[in-house]
């Protein structure tokens, strides 16, 4: 019965992505005395706007040889004026450390375009060498794939050892191999890999697609390879079918 309870229990949460419009308080220089005064001025102009307003503090635009930051004090200044700092946008390790010590979220600086060009060679960060693409084993399916079912081989090849019914859908970032009759849809290289191919023993597909270039059964049916062992690859943005 426990199983039933687990199944019946409605999920108590869900995860959602969202874009929120937030105000960013971007400091040009770390000068808390003046910040306090200038903020007071600003808030006076529109007290409603700043009342309990969630904000992001940004200190990544401050010069590197700026005054040392008293983060605790910066936070209390913001709160005094009614703002609620949610996170700190920073680049320097000391600032990030300080934020972590105060349990304040740290967010990375915005897009590289906005970042000032580093003047000193020592500033240029050497990017870590690109990681070797690690080997992801192909996804192997041994049972028939029925109408309404969808199989996705993420980041790898898909190998199906059984029939793929009309109304079923195969998706792979890499190649697709089908050793039973292929009557459903097969979409290879769905992340834009134009080198991906589809191999099948019996081509009776509803649709074949490589990197978004597709052919539907209407066209495939007229091909002399219909019902035969076929290889499909992309040549000059055209699907090319050839006998296996």
């Amino acid at each position, binding site marked *: 019965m426990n*199983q*039933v309870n687990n*199944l*019946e229990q409605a999920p108590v949460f869900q995860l959602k992505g969202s874009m929120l419009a937030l105000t960013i308080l971007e400091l040009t220089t770390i000068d808390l005395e003046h910040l306090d005064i200038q903020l007071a001025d600003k808030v006076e102009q529109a007290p409603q706007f700043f009342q309990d307003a969630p904000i992001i503090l940004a200190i990544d635009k401050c010069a590197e040889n700026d005054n040392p930051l008293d983060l605790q004090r910066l936070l209390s200044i913001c709160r005094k004026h009614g703002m609620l700092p949610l996170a700190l946008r920073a680049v320097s390790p000391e600032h990030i450390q300080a934020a972590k010590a105060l349990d304040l979220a740290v967010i990375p600086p915005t897009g590289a375009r906005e970042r000032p060009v580093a003047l000193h060679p020592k500033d240029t960060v050497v990017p870590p060498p690109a990681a070797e693409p690690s080997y992801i084993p192909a996804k192997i399916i041994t*049972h*028939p*794939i*029925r*109408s*309404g*079912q969808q199989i996705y081989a993420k980041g790898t090849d898909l190998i199906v050892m*059984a*029939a793929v*019914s*009309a*109304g*079923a859908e195969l998706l792979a970032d890499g190649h697709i191999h089908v050793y*039973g*009759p292929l*009557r459903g849809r097969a979409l290879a290289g769905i992340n834009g890999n134009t080198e991906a191919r589809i191999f099948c023993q019996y081509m009776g597909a509803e649709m074949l697609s490589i990197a978004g270039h597709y052919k539907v059964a209407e066209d495939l049916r007229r091909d002399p390879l219909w019902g035969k062992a076929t290889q499909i690859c992309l040549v000059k943005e055209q699907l090319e079918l050839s006998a296996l």
Partner: protein
Amino acid sequence: MSKILVVTSGKGGVGKTTTSAAIGTGLALRGHRTVIVDFDVGLRNLDLIMGCERRVVYDFVNVINGDATLNQALIKDKRLENLYILAASQTRDKDALTQEGVEKVLTELAEQFEYVICDSPAGIEKGAHLAMYLADAAIVVTNPEVSSVRDSDRMLGLLSSKSKRAEEGREPITEHLLLTRYSPERVERGEMLSVEDVEEILSIQMIGVIPESQAVLKASNQGVPVILDEDSDAGQAYSDAVERLLGKDVPHRFLDVPKKGFLKRMFGGKE
């Protein structure tokens, strides 16, 4: 060891209830204690086909809601000692079935009976899902036409992914295919999918091929399961299917166009 068997199809009107009645009766005829449960709440039909519509007092939903006990709701077949029917409610809809309720009733039935046959409603929604959720084996009823075959294919996919067995990672539901309303003449004329076509598309074992027969309509109007009409081809084909379900190896009959004798050719004559 009792067995829960769901008769399902996806598509409506292909002969699920006729099959449930015939297979259930066939099992009881062979001495197995059997109950047939109508899951088609709101479109109750099984009682008509079994000829017990005048004796329905309590139904499946009453048992789930606790208005009646299981033994009060079970209807004993008048012809066979081992056969019982649990009717669906005609005044409610599928939402009246709950997963816990269905599980409780089926578990209780499985204690009393060797075979629990669940007659699934059409579609792939709640009613059909609950009918197949606890099944150990399934008979997928298909007509030899493309839309029915595709719906059955979809149903087979759901059986292998949405059942309790699948969710618990146990041995999957045993799948059987039953082809009904088969007409060898029309297959020969190329108007109908052949047994081989259907078997190839669905790639599962065929448990029986029931020929298109006048006997089926007659039987359901009289409230007598067609399997009891031993002279009819459909009745015999259902008997064979029951034998195969019980593990016997019986050759398929009625797959070819019957050869007409000289006299029949002269005088026509219908079977």
